[in-house]
């Protein structure tokens, strides 16, 4: 895993250096051009992650990144989070949040419908009152809010 992170950083360094080259890394009419600073930053990432990669290769396979059971737990958060993030532009923040809390409590917590409904409806409702009415900050809304005329 450590190797993968180091390699990902190498790729990132490559992107930064390429982008810096596009912006121009040399000395322009008004001094250093836009890519000047990012270029050296990219070079430093490159060097640092190369050293990290060598370290990781040397001591790899000794340490376990995480147990499979732990990873499953983590994925069980990432998955709903990813779906949630994807839903927000379509359904709006309130409905997506309602679904996220409900799924989480039902699936991972194993609660009855009573508490699930109370919290899943309560949190978005509280957020609505606090942001739309109190702080006057509109949050993203979807078709369902339109139907309700909120």
């Amino acid at each position: 895993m450590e190797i993968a992170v180091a390699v990902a950083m190498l790729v990132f360094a490559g992107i930064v250096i390429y982008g810096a080259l596009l912006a121009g890394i040399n000395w322009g009419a008004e001094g250093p051009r836009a890519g000047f600073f990012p270029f050296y930053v990219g070079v430093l990432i490159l060097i640092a992650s190369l050293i990290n990669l060598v370290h990781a290769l040397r001591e790899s396979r000794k340490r376990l990144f995480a147990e499979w059971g732990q990873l499953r737990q983590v994925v069980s958060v990432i998955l709903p989070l990813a779906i949630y993030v994807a839903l927000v532009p379509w359904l709006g923040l309130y409905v997506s949040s309602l679904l996220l809390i409900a799924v989480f409590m039902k699936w991972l917590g194993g609660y009855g419908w009573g508490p699930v409904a109370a919290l899943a409806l309560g949190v978005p409702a509280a957020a609505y009152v606090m942001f739309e009415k109190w702080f006057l900050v509109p949050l993203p809304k979807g078709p369902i809010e339109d139907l309700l005329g909120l």
Partner: protein
Amino acid sequence: MEEIANLFGGFATVIQPFNLLVMVIGILLGVVIGVLPGLGGANGVAILLPLTFSMSPTSAIIMLSCIYWGALFGGAITSILFNIPGEPWSVATTFDGHPMARKGQAGEALTAAFTSSFVGALFAVVMITLVAPLVAKFALQFGPPEKFAVYFLAFCSFVGMSKEPPMKTVAAMMIGFALAAVGLDQVTGQLRLTFGINELLTGFDFLIAVIGLFGIGEILLTMEEGLSFRGGYAKINPKVVFQTWRELLKYWATSLRSCVIGCWMGITPAGATPASFMSYGIAKRVSKSGPKFGTGEIEGVVAPETAAHAAGTSALLPMLSLGVPGSPTAAVLLGGLLIWGLQPGPMLFVEQKEFVWGLIASMYLGNLVGLVIVLTCVPMLAAILRIPFSIIAPVILVVCAIGAYTVHNAPFDIVLMAIFGVIGYLLKKTGYPLAPLVLAIVLGDKAEEAFRQSLLGSQGGLGVFFSNTLVSTIMVLGLIALFWPLIQAGWSRVRRALAPA
């Protein structure tokens, strides 16, 4: 004497009813944030920052800094009662705090922890009151090369002082700089590193990064451990409090030492976490009851808590006087200053007297109010911890998402937040420090600007960073900090070589 008059002016600002209200709300929120897993000082402040846009900067900073104090206090509760550090800097508090709680001395341990926190913070605030104006006055002479040298010093001490392998710190830090560079170049107004993606035009906002890295990343880490809270009840009554206070007087030497360690580690951006470990380690070596540390010694609670709070507070000194934050949370506060249209750095003390002294006065009062609140609210706060994680986790996720969205009212930011969350989890698991990354995102543009302006002045020669005594001193200090582990190793080798002779 002028400072004292300013300070009283600050107190006058703070005791306006609205500011007092904001202070109490801030501390309560902060304590809750400190108690909950997945919400820490840095991202708690980041989430609530957008809500303060409509307040006056002074009220806003009072609220946000009080959230920070509250979070510092709150971390101790979970460490002592549940052996779960709510914040990284309270890990050292679990060593003796939790054994005390198991022996039935939870009340004493909590009182000791809160009081030590208060003492540490107070010491640091007094130091800020005395030293910050002087540093600011001094820093007024700084030109671009000196400014860059200060940034250089800050980032070098990160590399040299952190527990993580130096190359991992460098990599994390430089990634922060690269992310800060995305978008519009401030000097030439040219676009860079956007690769034609419209959403990247405005660059990466550090608030989104903080919420993702610290908030979402932390939840993923907590989830991995499959947390289930099991812990005792705690009652604090006045008798226990006064008894403990009397006992604490015996440990004044430990307190004082921890204050000094904390302040030092807070000003150099090493932060509260190493400060608490270092203070605990030294107390263990020096104290008469040292061998008994780890079995529930009250001194083992005093040392790390004092140092952590002193460090957390004094981290604001370089932020206010130099514009270089000493901790991730201070970095977020600094970002807040920029958003409110205030230029952090020495000019703040000249142009925004009311703001600066209001903040300093609120540190005195906020910590006192915080002490009273945590001493009286412990049972309620412990009850929060018994709420199962499968309820807390989705609610925190929603709060983070709302916080990320309200920064720019951009739905894309929620996606970014989630990505940063996964990245934060991976980096944490593989031992990359997150604090330098966040600091680099916040300071990236300013450091780059200072660097390029210096080079402009010198037509590209790096000699400008060694052109006068002031800038060379700071640069050399930076280099010493950068190679500190090597110097230390070399020195002990020299000493060993000399010893037999």
